[in-house]
């Protein structure tokens, strides 16, 4: 059932929405409660029927499911399949859901059990390699970012509710960074994935003089060869470039290639499980 709400004076259908989290920091859901000045308008767009972090009521009757986090254990596969079965639209919310996020960094170890032993010793704990949602189910919309940007979430959700095709930029962060009149981070001696990362964050990090870490994954196209040349020209160590390329999982292929190229992969001999 869909009730009618009004958003900015226009009558809109308020779809029943549910929010779920798999392996994550739950920061993307926290973002949904931010932008307080517009929070009530945002909540009026939809009818939340399942949001464990914020409400007791739980219904399995929903149209749109927002799923934060990645899959790292078998019971999460079961939960995700059930959500997919129920939801008309399944939205991957944030870098963990889209690419595995920082959690997929554990996948780089050759021995998959090494990470578990490093943290828990002999104590048995169930875990599996970190996987993006789309490795398990079909995903209808990806909202990128670590964390997601609330303004973008508001726009995308409005577009979904109003039946418009959600707009997701293909061009790189560099475009937005230039539009903000920022100094180039390379010129400031920083590493930056802005030239190859999908825009839509309004150059969030570079505008704070922090080089981009690629949390939104590759732009379309993403000229990684040119980025490697630029990095070399500015004297950026290949290891620093790798740190950024492999951080959130969006550049997994390029990162694995670069890691293989560097003959001192983890840089340490103490961790038998290094890639």
């Amino acid at each position, binding site marked *: 059932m869909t009730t009618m709400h009004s958003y900015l004076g226009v009558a809109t259908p308020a779809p029943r929405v549910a929010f779920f989290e798999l392996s994550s920091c739950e920061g993307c859901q926290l973002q949904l*409660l931010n932008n307080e000045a517009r929070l009530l308008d945002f909540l009026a767009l939809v009818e939340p029927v399942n949001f464990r972090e*914020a*409400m007791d009521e739980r219904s399995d009757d929903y149209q749109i499911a927002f799923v934060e986090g990645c899959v790292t254990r078998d019971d*999460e596969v079961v939960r995700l399949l059930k959500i997919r079965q129920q939801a008309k639209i399944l939205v991957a919310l944030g870098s963990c859901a889209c690419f595995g996020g920082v959690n997929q960094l554990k996948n780089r170890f050759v021995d998959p059990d090494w990470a578990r032993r490093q943290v828990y*010793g002999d104590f048995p704990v169930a*875990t599996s390699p970190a996987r993006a949602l789309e490795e398990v189910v079909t995903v209808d919309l990806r909202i990128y970012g670590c964390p997601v940007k609330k303004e973008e979430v508001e726009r995308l959700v409005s577009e979904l509710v109003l039946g418009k095709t959600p707009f997701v930029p293909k061009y790189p962060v560099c475009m937005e960074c230039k539009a903000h009149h920022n100094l180039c981070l390379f010129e400031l001696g920083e590493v930056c994935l802005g030239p190859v990362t999908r825009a839509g964050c309004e150059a969030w990090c570079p505008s*704070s003089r922090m080089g981009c870490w690629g949390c939104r994954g590759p732009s379309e196209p993403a000229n990684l060869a040119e980025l490697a040349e630029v990095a070399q020209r500015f004297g950026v160590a290949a290891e620093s470039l790798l740190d950024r390329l492999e951080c959130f999982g969006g550049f997994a292929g390029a990162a694995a290639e670069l890691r293989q190229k560097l003959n001192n992969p983890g840089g340490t001999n103490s961790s038998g499980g*290094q890639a």
Partner: protein
Amino acid sequence: MSTIRKVEIHHLTRVEGHGNITIRIQDGKLIEARWEVVETPRFFEAILVGKKWENAPWLCGRICGICSIGHTLASIRAVERAFGLAVAPEAEKFRLLLKHMETLQSHVLHLCFLVAPDFLGTGSILPLIASHPDTVKLAARLKMLANQACELIGGRSLHPTRTVVGGFTMYPERAELAVLKDRLAAALPELDVLAGLFATFMIPDFRRETEFVSLQGEARYPFLGGDLVSSDGVRRSEDDYLPMTNEYCVEQSTSKWSRLSRPSFAVGALARLNNNYSLLTPGARATAERFGLAPVNHNPFMNNVAQLVECVQVVEDSLLLIEELLATRWAAPRQVVKPRAGRGVAAVEVPRGILYHCYEFDDEGRITRADCVIPTSQNHANIQHDLVVMVAEMAAAGQSDKEIEQRAAMLVRAYDPCISCSVH
């Protein structure tokens, strides 16, 4: 023949992360009460190994979406202490100010969005939009102020972008800081209104004596580094955190547990306040007195009140910090970092209690070992022990399953657990 009564809560609501409560009662006697943590581990301590120092704060902030600023600052402090790097006094002040604004944001979120519905008889804040519009708007204003202050100083409200080893990538403008000061001053009467609301709530009357662990402040209510102290009289240096945390694995939880002088101890706002009451600012002290909160208080539900007191504390202290910042000249925000081999420990008070990060580095500044001890993991055993005693009392008093279920959920919620953070 008497039947066994069961209360089961699967994936407790209005808390961060995934936890279950299982209770069994027979003939008014408690058979079993368990606090189970079923969150998936993400293995941050393994992920860090082999990574260069500059990755640590960026990755470790992602341990927790709610206290990402606290994790980032703890991580930075551990790296800087390993490398013997001291930042400029104004950088320290900006860090503390940022820390304060995260505390305010987190406490207001917990008190108004997660806790208040219990006392107002609703399942979430959503029905309160219609029934208590002024309260909801007040909560939104305070949260917005705190978030915008985090954006101003840290670059954004979570997973900050300006906080780096060596200082900051950039500082805000002085004029912006002056505006923040005015807004914070205007927030004090708002917090007084919030205290007025909480004064009408019936805080459950439950007491179980326990040990409280926190930083020990010297001149200021403590948040960033210093000695570690317990209300049972243990005192250790920051580097000596391991005998203070004593982590071990338990079958009922993917989060480790901790113990010190007793089978469990508590960390968080109540622990900080119990151990540092004399360092409260005047308004914070007056708020504590209004609720009859004095050390050593052993009612876990008073952690909510302690958070309220700390909201006033961090706002009053922020006003002083901004005055100090505006009265001084600032050097370049970021210092050059020279890595070296060694070990660095940081103890930082984050909203839910004392947090430790410890890293070991090789001489190029790559991490060879990492250890993070999370506030909520230190609280899990205390929650378990509270739950057993409280439910046994309620069962003996003949209270209904519904009452027990609600009170058990409120007990866990009072600790403001950050469960995915505790498992990390």
